[in-house]
């Protein structure tokens, strides 16, 4: 599939996202890193990696990317910290101002600290068999706005959601080689 995906390369599991999208797109696709907003509009979709949301947001602001990311018209594939960035509101933290790209409330570290990180097979709407999901100091979505599709949830909250061209995950679909969510994302982008 020809198609251009950009991976935000400020902090986090950048190379894992690159590999996953390279595999999902195949040899005709192009996956590049970006660290500023100058060329994001040439991408059909962008990935916001997992990492530390506080750190990534600070670097987004420093690089002048806050507005350009808000105004970006392609699809956004966000995992873990990326999900926090996309939210409109972060629970229990009024100081953190997310991008507000998706109307939803996110709770950070919803499962606890590192030692509470876990892997689980979860049922997901749109997938025939469960997805093996890796949760690392993961956030959850506690409220979604109108028009948001919930693809998967756990007792703590929603862990996979979709709105328009965007997809956001508490866990890390870029780890483990199961690219079904990547394909769903690319499909909606027409790739």
């Amino acid at each position, binding site marked *: 599939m020809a198609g251009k995906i950009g991976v935000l390369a400020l902090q986090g599991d950048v190379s894992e996202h690159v590999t996953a999208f390279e595999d999902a797109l195949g040899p005709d696709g192009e996956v590049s890193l970006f660290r500023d907003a100058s060329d994001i509009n040439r991408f059909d979709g962008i990935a916001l990696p997992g990492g530390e949301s506080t*750190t990534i947001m600070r670097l987004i602001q420093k690089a002048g990317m806050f507005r350009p990311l808000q105004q970006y018209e392609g699809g956004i594939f966000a995992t873990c910290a990326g999900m926090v960035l996309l939210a409109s509101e972060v629970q229990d933290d009024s100081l953190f101002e997310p991008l507000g790209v998706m109307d939803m409330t996110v709770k950070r*570290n919803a499962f606890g600290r*590192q030692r509470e990180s876990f892997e689980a097979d979860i049922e997901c709407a749109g997938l025939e068999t469960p997805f093996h999901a890796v949760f690392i100091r993961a956030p959850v979505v506690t409220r979604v706005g109108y028009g948001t599709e919930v693809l998967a949830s756990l007792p703590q909250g929603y862990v996979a959601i979709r709105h328009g061209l965007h997809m956001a995950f508490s866990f890390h679909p870029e780890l483990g080689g199961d690219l079904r969510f990547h394909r769903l994302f690319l499909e909606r982008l027409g790739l």
Partner: protein
Amino acid sequence: MDVVSAEQAVIAENAGAVAVMALERVPADIRKAGGVSRMADPTKIVEITEAVSIPVMAKVRIGHFVEAQVLQELGVDMIDESEVLTPADEEFHVDKKAFSVPFVCGARNLGEALRRINEGAAMIRTKGEAGTGNVVEAVRHMRAIQSEIRMLKGMDDQERAGYARKIEAPFELVLDVANRGRLPVVNFSAGGIATPSDAALMMQLGADGVFVGSGIFKSENPEKMAKAIVETVHHFNDPKVIAEVSRGLGEAMPGIDVHTLTPDERLQTRGW
């Protein structure tokens, strides 16, 4: 970034650090204090974990698996089995596979890195010489690991098996490194990084990130230094950015020439 209080942890978080190391003393002060250096007081660690949302690491003595059990119980996000503290076991490192919390360990060369990974380390940091503000040992160790990896890539499997025996590392891991062209876990650089240029140097030599220990809070203006080093690590290939952020930082931490250290004073030789 190494921090010794909640205030310092908040400064590090605001600067853009991806994690903090909760300590009672930074390595430069551990070096000065001498004596036996141990895991930090749990009160200190809890104070720091409660102050920030980024992950908190803490150090245990090499081989001290009970200190590690305590840190896991306290909920730290990663344990550093560190040569900066006085080793508790001169024969065995902690069996890291027995823990659910991930570990980072120091290494000076590929063999040491792979032995730690085989014990269950989820992350490696080159040792450098902690608390000196002198980057020379960090450079030596990073170059050693990278050059060994490049050598492995050019060998056939028989030669790789021979090399695995020579560096006392499991053959499967040696093979894995040769195929990937890198360690199977992230490799950060540590021990002596004191300026933005030091940090960029280590990144350009192939580090996935850097640990800054005494370099932040022993400098004249920790807040500025912390921000400048974060900025540099994200733009490590861009001398323009490095030049810009290096302006007016004030004095970096006072340094020590590693050649003046006696063998006993060299922390990097702890562990094997």
